[in-house]
């Protein structure tokens, strides 16, 4: 055997591999091959020495939690297709309280391919919600896994949750399964709605469906069929485009950066609000951030640049990145409430302290809530 032929086997020797007898005999007697073996071994040792020198000794601790996943799923499903997980109900309670004064909070990512039924729900106090159901992806069964969409609002007293899903189709008609429940808190709504049977209603897009809900009064449902699941729904059916309306504050799929550090990422969550409202985010350990197009005491002023908000807080630079233009205004106010915790008093459950959420609300209502202290 020649040296060139033995060379690859020398490499294999370094890896602890057995080599053919002929190659082993050659390496045992050939000075050049033994030198190559030595060089390979030295290179390996030198690499390990360098690795030892360069080894980082501190590992940044990471909290491996499901919270982000759950939050994202909830909002995606909450206004798109929702299976009403109990944990998700617990996380939406602050939003529920906010609903009382014209709340507008909608979201639907394109979760499923194919056609979608978009429902517009007009309920008392001239409030309006929209949500979408996948037509191609619904199951013809009545188990809890059938995707739903719906909303919560104040029932005065208490909270009412209303959910829709498609049970069957017949030509262009849809049999909707509707579940609604009034309860003192959203926690109890979540539990009770899960155990409710569907009340079936036949519905045809283009026509109105009148339903009287307990605690809410008469609701009018209209709808249309789209050839896709919409990526964004707003409460204003006339403004489904990218450009926000005058006075509208719209936050889609936000992520907040402090310098280069990610403070939170609420991918899939969205909120809009009009007039004197605000959009807020809560993340465990970070407290609550409130965004308002009007000056707020204690808030810092930020600059809106299309789908980004730049601001300084505590001598650090922040950028809120979102998936769509935020407002027509040039300026926005950001209030950070680090001590804020969801509480039953604010309509939230203790459980929701574990999960991030966002929503839109009347500014006075949000500021009227005293932050909970540790």
């Amino acid at each position, binding site marked *: 055997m020649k040296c060139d032929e033995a060379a690859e086997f020398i*490499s294999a020797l370094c890896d602890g591999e057995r080599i053919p007898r002929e190659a082993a005999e050659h390496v045992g007697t050939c000075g050049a091959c033994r030198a190559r073996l030595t060089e390979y071994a030295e290179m390996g040792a030198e690499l390990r020495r360098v690795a030892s020198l360069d080894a980082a000794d501190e590992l940044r601790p990471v909290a491996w939690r499901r919270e982000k996943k759950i939050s994202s799923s909830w909002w995606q499903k909450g206004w798109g297709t929702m299976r009403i997980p109990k944990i998700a109900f617990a996380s939406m309670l602050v939003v529920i309280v906010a609903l009382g004064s014209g709340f507008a909070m909608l979201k639907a990512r394109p979760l499923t391919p194919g056609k979608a039924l978009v429902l517009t729900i007009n309920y008392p106090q001239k409030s309006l919600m929209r949500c979408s159901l996948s037509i191609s992806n619904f199951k013809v069964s009545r188990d809890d896994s059938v995707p739903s969409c719906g909303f919560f609002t104040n029932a005065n007293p208490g909270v009412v949750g209303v959910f829709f899903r498609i049970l069957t189709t017949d030509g262009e008609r849809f049999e909707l399964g509707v579940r609604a429940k009034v309860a003192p808190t959203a926690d109890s709504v979540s539990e009770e709605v899960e155990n409710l049977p569907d009340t079936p209603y036949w519905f045809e897009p283009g026509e109105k469906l009148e339903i009287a809900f307990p605690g809410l009064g008469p609701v009018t449902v209209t709808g249309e069929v789209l050839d896709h699941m919409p990526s964004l729904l707003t409460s204003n059916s006339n403004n489904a485009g990218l450009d926000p309306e005058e006075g509208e504050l719209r936050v889609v799929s936000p992520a907040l950066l402090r310098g280069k550090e990610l403070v939170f990422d609420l991918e899939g969550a969205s909120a809009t609000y009009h007039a004197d409202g605000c959009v807020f985010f809560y993340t465990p350990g970070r407290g609550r951030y409130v965004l308002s197009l009007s000056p707020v005491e204690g808030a810092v002023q930020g600059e809106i640049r299309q789908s980004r908000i730049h601001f300084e807080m505590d001598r650090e630079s922040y950028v809120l990145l979102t998936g769509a233009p935020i407002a027509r205004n040039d300026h926005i106010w950001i209030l950070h409430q680090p001590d804020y915790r969801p509480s039953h008093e604010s309509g939230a459950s203790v459980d929701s302290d574990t999960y991030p959420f966002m929503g839109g609300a009347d500014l006075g209502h949000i500021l009227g809530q005293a932050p909970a202290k540790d």
Partner: protein
Amino acid sequence: MADDHALWELIRTRDASAFDSFYRENALRLQAFLRQLVGSRQAAEDVMQETFAQMWQRPNGFEPNRGTLRGYLYGIGRKRAAEWWRKQRPQNSGSENHADECVAKTEIDSMVADVLRRLPEEQRTLLWLREVEGQSYAELAQILEIPVGTVRSRLFAAREQLRSIWKGSEQGGKEGA
């Protein structure tokens, strides 16, 4: 392998404690490997975090009967490092060898470290994972997505390339002295 299967099941069922143990056991070594691919310590840490985050948030794709969990992890890391480069230099997306950038960022005064960074990415990966991490041919095949039988010949080629450049550097150093 049996342990990998059990651990993977825990990760798939969102067992944060099990995943954290896996993270603590492998993160720094993965970071050291990624540093050979992306150059800077900070970038390596970022890519390492992204790698674990991807594994945690989207626990799919690992098949216990086709490789080890460690090999799967390093395979994801290598792909994330390639993505990192594409984001850094979109106009050079076809380039696999980022040696120049890496050399500029070297923080270790070592000839072999410098020489290593002049190798193509695949050879750098092979040598680091074999010599430093002690990964098996099967794991290397899994990470690089090449046949096991090819690993030996490519490792040989990588060693020869490293040896050639190293000897050239030594020669240059002696001539320059």
